[in-house]
């Protein structure tokens, strides 16, 4: 079987690796527009923030011996009747199955003066590929101010990353609150407060209307609210647009993305599939790599096992967990979050808002399962909720327990009591199950030091961690005169290393 994959990004490469592993006799060709081979686009903001070395981005790719890998070569034409793909070098590739994994492009808003015929004005950029990240890094040494447009996940990551590098950042967002798709008012307010603390100035309800430049270089921006801001950089994080041009030209139905059915196939052509950001599956695209990787896995499974590629709700991990990667700002959302529509479901939403310490948690529960959550400023809670959400693990009877955890040590069992305050039946030496009562009795019988107690009760002869406690009990219970004498009754010693 001839398989052609268009797009050698995070999803296309994962698909091909899995496919050749499972279907060794498939003849696979993968075309990648960028010369570098697959790399981790999710971490571009971490590179800009200086948290990740750019050398860390390269990802594993299919063994070139197992597939024809054409990096730096893009597809220019798909002929569905002839089942061929023509590439930018003019070579023609035949396919039995075609997988489109072209990803998405950065949306470039209509802003006056950001571009000339030569492209974006120096200082203006998006952050979609490695070249963009390198462009931003190259300007950093001379940049004192930056404007980031768009307070979605990427915009917030870029803004906090630049701020952490000492750049004065203004984050401009068209909606009335940051991350308006994921956060409601209260959560967004707390996140905004955290952004301010990290040195990011947040302007909401406005956009960038025009770029100000001098001698061909950006010097500032004019905002739609009439304000102006001096800046050395404008990084536009205004969303993405699925790359559908090739599919549209091939006559495949496209809306926002390339329309595919539950089997990830085009309704117009059962030989053509789309996965990753370019695809528009029935449940909608999330723009998250987890969804694309899940699609890649399902498609390979379907081809190899002859099963359906549709999401098996009983088995599927939920992939719409959104995490902002920003030091000092913890925002995680999943499922129903922000201002969601209850529909006709029976939902229980429980929330905790604690703005003065920057904490907000909301959990949404339906039929005993967590169906959504919004967490700002509580790392531990966020990671626990995500683990529970993605695995559909039943929630406690009272969802409030998902939010408020008992204080460590608040329960009687966990309380770190002083050994003197323990009951007599409490175990002091775990290794030998020796109770406090037995130790106290041994002290009463004349044991005057830890070695004596060990001899009499075996307490402290395992890991030795309770020696301090045994000593305290001796001090508390022994007759004053006896505490310093050594009994000399220790077990006879055998040469240390006799085998």
């Amino acid at each position: 079987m001839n398989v052609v994959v268009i797009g050698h990004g995070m999803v296309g490469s994962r698909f091909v690796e899995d496919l050749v592993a499972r279907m060794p006799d498939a003849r696979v060709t993968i075309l990648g527009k960028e010369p570098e081979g697959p790399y981790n686009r999710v971490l571009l903001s971490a590179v800009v923030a200086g948290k990740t070395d750019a050398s860390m981005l390269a990802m594993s790719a299919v063994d070139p011996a197992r597939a024809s890998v054409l990096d730096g070569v893009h597809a220019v034409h798909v002929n569905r009747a002839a089942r061929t793909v023509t590439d930018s070098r003019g070579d023609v590739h035949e396919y039995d199955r075609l997988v489109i994994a072209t990803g998405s492009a950065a949306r470039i808003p209509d802003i006056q003066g950001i571009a000339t015929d030569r492209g974006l004005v120096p200082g203006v950029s998006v952050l979609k590929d490695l070249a963009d990240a390198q462009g931003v890094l190259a300007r950093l040494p001379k940049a004192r101010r930056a404007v980031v447009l768009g307070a979605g996940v990427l915009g917030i990551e870029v803004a906090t990353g630049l701020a952490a590098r000492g750049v004065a950042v203004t984050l401009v967002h068209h909606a009335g609150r940051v991350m308006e798709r994921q956060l409601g008012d209260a959560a967004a307010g707390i996140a905004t407060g955290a952004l301010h603390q990290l040195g990011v100035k947040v302007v909401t309800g406005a956009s960038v209307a025009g770029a100000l430049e001098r001698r061909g270089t950006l010097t500032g921006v004019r905002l739609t609210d009439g304000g102006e801001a001096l800046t050395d950089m404008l990084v536009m994080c205004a969303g993405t647009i699925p790359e559908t041009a090739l599919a549209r030209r091939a006559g495949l139905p496209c809306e926002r993305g390339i329309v595919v059915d539950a089997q990830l196939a085009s309704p117009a052509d059962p030989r053509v599939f789309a996965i990753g950001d370019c695809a528009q599956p029935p449940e909608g695209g999330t723009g998250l790599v987890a969804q694309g990787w899940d699609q890649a896995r399902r498609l390979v499974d379907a081809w190899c096992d002859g099963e359906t590629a549709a999401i098996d709700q009983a088995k599927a991990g939920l992939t719409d967990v959104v995490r902002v990667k920003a030091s000092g700002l913890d925002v995680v959302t999943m499922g129903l979050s922000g201002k969601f529509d209850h529909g006709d479901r029976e939902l229980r939403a429980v929330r905790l808002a604690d703005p003065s310490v920057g904490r907000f948690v909301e959990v949404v529960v339906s039929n005993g399962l967590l169906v959504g959550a919004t967490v700002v400023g509580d790392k531990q809670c966020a990671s626990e909720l995500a683990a529970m959400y993605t695995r559909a693990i039943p929630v406690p009877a009272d969802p409030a327990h998902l939010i408020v955890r008992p204080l460590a040590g608040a329960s009687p069992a966990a309380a770190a009591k002083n050994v003197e305050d323990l009951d007599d039946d409490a175990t002091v030496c775990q290794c030998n199950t020796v109770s406090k009562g037995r130790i106290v009795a041994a002290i009463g019988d004349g044991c005057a030091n830890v070695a004596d107690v060990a001899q009499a009760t075996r307490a402290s002869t395992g890991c030795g961690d309770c020696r301090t406690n045994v000593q305290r009990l001796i001090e508390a219970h022994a007759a004053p005169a006896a505490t310093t004498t050594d009994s000399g009754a220790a077990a006879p010693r055998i040469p240390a290393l006799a085998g």
Partner: protein
Amino acid sequence: MTVATHCPYCALQCAQTLHPTPGERLPVEVAGREFPTNRGGLCQKGWTSAEVLRASDRLTAPLLRTADDGFREADWDEALDLVASRLSALQEQHGRDAVAIFGGGGLTNEKAYALGKFARVALRTRLIDYNGRFCMSSAAAASNRALGMDRGLGFPLADLAGADAVLIVGSNMAATMPPFVQHLAGVRERGGLVIVDPRETVTAKLTRDGQGLHLAPVPGTDLVVLLALAHVVLAEGLADQEYLEERTTGLNEVRRAVAAWWPERAEGICGIPAERLRETARVLAAASPSHGGRGAYILTGRGLEQMSQGTAGVTAAINLALLLGLIGRVGSGFGPVTGQGNGQGGREHGQKSDQLPGYRMITDPLARERVAGVWGVDPDSLPGPGIPAVQLLDALGTPGGPRALLVHGSNVVVSAPHATKVVDALRRLDLLVVADTVPSETAMLADVILPVTQWAEEDGTMTNLEGRIIRRRKAVDAPGEARSELWILQQLATRLGVPTGFPTAAGEVFDELARASAGGKADYSGITYDRLDAGEELLWPVPGAGHPGTPRVFLDGFPTPDGRARLIPVDHHAPADDVRADAPIYLITGRVLQHYQSGAQTRRVAELAAAQPGPFVEMHPLLADSLAVAEGDAVRLTTARGTAEASVRLSEDTRPDTVFMPFHWAGKGSANRLTNDATDPISGMPEFKVTAVAIAPAPTREAVAR
């Protein structure tokens, strides 16, 4: 006259002094003895170990199954004649592989060696494997392919004391081998103990109060934690570049593989906050030599290894250690913490399906020639590789499978995964022979039970978790007719037509073992009882009489073809039996302090049984609340394999999505009725440590009656 020996239980092999006490209820009195590993300490199991010598139902005569399904006592000749004639008949009728052997990681080196030789020379069956497959196989497979050798810790335990950080993944040694904890005092003082365990075990509690960090991942995701730590080490430029260039290969592949495991993604799978993962990676890096630290160690346990991705898990741990430049350096290192008493030696001398003495591969023509030479047989007469434990147990009594099984030092009915299936398999056999000291659950299914000596009744050597060879010394005679396996194998071999080559004196067997191991990876050729008895500290390899032993391995390079360690890319997959709507809770299994493995020994010690009387399932109060059960309630646990019952023990130490059940009991409270027998594709290790379970209140008697 006192006798210096070592504890009968775990791989720490605490040194003991036995004082014979003629005329007393127990034949010896036990005390701890100063030794580099236990420093005089013993846990409750060790202190009470003499009780097992006089277990009330100790086997003291061979037992033969009777027509009415009971047992009758027999003398040795009758029992051995019967076994040998049945084995011969079955092999004549169905071929050599009609007989299989199942060994144990508690057997002395001498017994393990003799058992492997007996299989290959007397029975000439390829079907031998052992319960170490359930214990160390993933660690062994990963160490061998990455480092070229598997010597457990690779360094003396006492070295841990000097480190700035020790990362321990999936081991609860404070409960399973308590005296080990003494070696962690230094690193705890410096705040560098890092424990990865879904439970806040007593070991994890050692990190409290600033003594370190505890990461509690979702069960089955420890590998993700390791991948994320490797990611951070590389992303933040914390790796030891010089070491990687000089001593390893494969960096590029591993770098690309862990590129997919950035901390925020890992957090979504393992449930540990991304910042916590970063913090942990930085603690380890700061402790490592390339950053001027005093050193760091990475240790793995069964929690990581007993997975269908166990080999990948240990590989990820090795990768992390290599990235930090820890392996083959004084003061730093990597190692799996071996579990069974002779789990290390037991995997070196030929009771593994693909192995010959000296940690040689049975498929290697040179190894076959060398060992056959020592054994005085034609190399071509040696059988080829057999099959690993789970597969072997599955094959019993099936068409074309083995018809007879000899079990030595193992209680598979309680300790193997999917235990009910194992019972069915044993019942399909024409002949089951079990050699044991007590009537274990497995022995009770046997056609012939052979009473054997134990611990204080025999001489031999064990190889502890450090790769240190130690002496087991006889202090008392065994009761009744109990005999050493060395004698039994010699008797059987003679009856099978091989009258020579099976000496019964342990020292003689050891000398032959040492010769057979010469030139192998686990080279014991320079070790003698005399050297050990003179107090020499010998950690293998000891290639030759004048060799001082090898306390720390890999200092001068790795025993791989190019002398370099291999970084090998690995990836995570979900458990074979993951949580789902009708089994929404994770079940993990493990041990408690007072019991050892299947409990065949410790359940017979009154003091231990009193402290931990029966099966229980530990769960978080929140989970108990949602299941509407309370402390002490009986619950029924159901997995895709079967059901078990246990009483509820509430604890905030366990994640609310997870329950913990110890596996020491038989019958309806047996945890291994529930565990998954899916295995690791490389090591054959079963996935004991994670499965999906449904829990409900146990049906009451009245409900059952209705």
